[in-house]
């Protein structure tokens, strides 16, 4: 019997689910090994009997928690899909300012109508069994993780930084080209796609274990960024992590 799989989303752009749909174009055989019972972005059926839940999006309202906990209760495995679910992502930038200011900025005089709280990764609310990093996720990595989960293996998410993949691609270093990059402290697995196209890494896949953040700040400053610019860059996707560190 094929394991039943469902996709869910919270606060996000749904780009990671779109990448899943996209990955089916080249890996249609995925449907031979799993049965998708719920996937709002791709189908109208809505089954509630699932074993593996892929969850996109960060949790930004108290009301979201009940739904996420219900998913957790049903699913044997919960997989965070993409930067918002994995890290809090760009939604967590709002955590850096007072919440009332943020609500007023976005909703003006109607701000009291909209419930919100500090954005957080789904792991801050429920236990998460695996994560697929990135903004958006890498479709090949999504397939690799699904295969590993089906084989009962640990998903092969790299613990090493983007620099490894960037050097293997023989890219010249962004810093040597006058740019800025978070590659030395950011988790690889993306194939260094941004530096390969001469755009510095923005850290969407989160930090590696034991990142040397102090050295990263020093290097960015040495190459001409101000302290504010350094912090803006380092909190683009990782503001939740940074606000936790600040506590």
């Amino acid at each position: 019997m094929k394991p039943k799989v469902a996709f869910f989303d919270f606060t996000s752009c749904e780009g990671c689910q779109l990448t899943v749909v996209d990955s089916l174009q080249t890996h249609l055989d995925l449907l031979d090994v799993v049965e998708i019972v719920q996937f709002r972005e791709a189908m109208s059926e809505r089954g509630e009997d699932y074993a593996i839940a892929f969850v996109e999006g960060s949790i930004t309202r108290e009301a979201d928690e009940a739904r996420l906990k219900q998913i957790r209760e049903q699913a044997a495995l919960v997989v965070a899909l993409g930067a918002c679910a994995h890290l809090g992502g760009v939604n967590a930038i709002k955590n850096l300012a007072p919440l009332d200011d943020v609500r007023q900025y976005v909703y003006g005089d109607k701000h009291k109508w909209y419930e919100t709280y500090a954005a957080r990764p789904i792991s801050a609310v429920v236990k998460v069994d695996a994560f697929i990093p990135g903004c958006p996720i890498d479709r090949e990595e999504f397939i690799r993780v699904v295969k590993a989960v089906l084989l009962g293996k640990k998903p092969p998410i790299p613990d090493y930084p983007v620099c490894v993949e960037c050097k293997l691609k023989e890219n010249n270093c962004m810093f040597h080209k006058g740019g800025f990059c978070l590659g030395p402290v950011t988790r690889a697995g993306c194939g260094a796609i941004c530096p390969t196209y001469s755009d510095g890494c923005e850290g969407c896949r989160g930090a590696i274990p034991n990142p040397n953040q102090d050295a990263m700040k020093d290097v960015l400053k040495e190459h001409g960024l101000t302290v504010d610019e350094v912090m803006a860059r380092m909190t683009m996707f990782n503001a939740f992590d940074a606000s936790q560190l600040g506590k």
Partner: protein
Amino acid sequence: MSLKIINKSDLMPFVANMMGEYEVIGPVANDIGFKFATLTDASQVRLNYNTTVIPPRKTLLPTQETLFSFQKDMLAPTFDMKWRVLLGVHTCDLHAMCMLDEAFARGQPDTHYMKRRATTTIVSMECLDTCDENSFCKSMNTLTATSGFDLHLIQLGDFYAVDVGTTAGEALLANHAKSHEATRAEIALLDKTMSQKWSKFPVRLHLDGKDLPALMGVSYKSPLWEEVGKRCFGCGSCNIVCPTCYCFDVRDEVSMDGKSGERYRIWDSCQLDEFARIGSGENFRKTHAHRLRHRFMRKGKYIAEAFPGHQGCVGCGRCARACLVDITPVGVWNSLRQDHA
């Protein structure tokens, strides 16, 4: 073996002729530098390149290489038996590849490496000037080479002197190039050029490379490792760009139905968290300081002792260029030398 001459105008036809019969890999320009790549047109080759991000060892040990494919009860090795010419190798990288030849042939020979090596002809190139402020080939005695190549080119104004190192090189030259026996005047110019080049390469290391094993032997407990460890990202760039690193990781890629797959190897780095982590979760080298020390021990001592006549560092300077926090062999070794002055 012997010394031949190719006129400069005959070099491109030589490259083009080789391309008819071999995959020719040589230095080509990329956005701000150079890299070794398969030539699709002879005019792409840049023999005046200074250095590349990753060394030409990738021709013999590809960054990622399938070893075998498997199904239930079936295993089929994968070999790439293409005939290749590796063109424009600098002598630092040539010395490194001679070390790799020894490392992969020793004990149980590495079949994949050995087969690639056997189908690769190396045409190396004499450096007549220093590449930049990071190289220190002079101290590592890799500024020139007398063996290890099939052919070796030395540019002398309007012509190239060609040192023929092997019969394979001799055949390559005879079959694909227009060349002649060096005249007395050409040999004299070669001697003059070779003796004049030495002064163009500054001495950067405050000891001879041959003394590194002794220096590293007394430096295991140096406080320097903790000091540089604080700056280190553990990003592994130094390993990936190193011509003498040869560690690789082995991974499987399994088909969707789980019934077949491929085993491949991919370059690894001793600076990464997971390199010395074992199944139980223990890590033999927990900190950046421990990993850096290990790397410098490999480069300065362990390899030289394991493979007599070879060195773990050839002074190419790639790791110094790649390091964003200025951890360099010249800096580290000079500092250790200073401590034992």
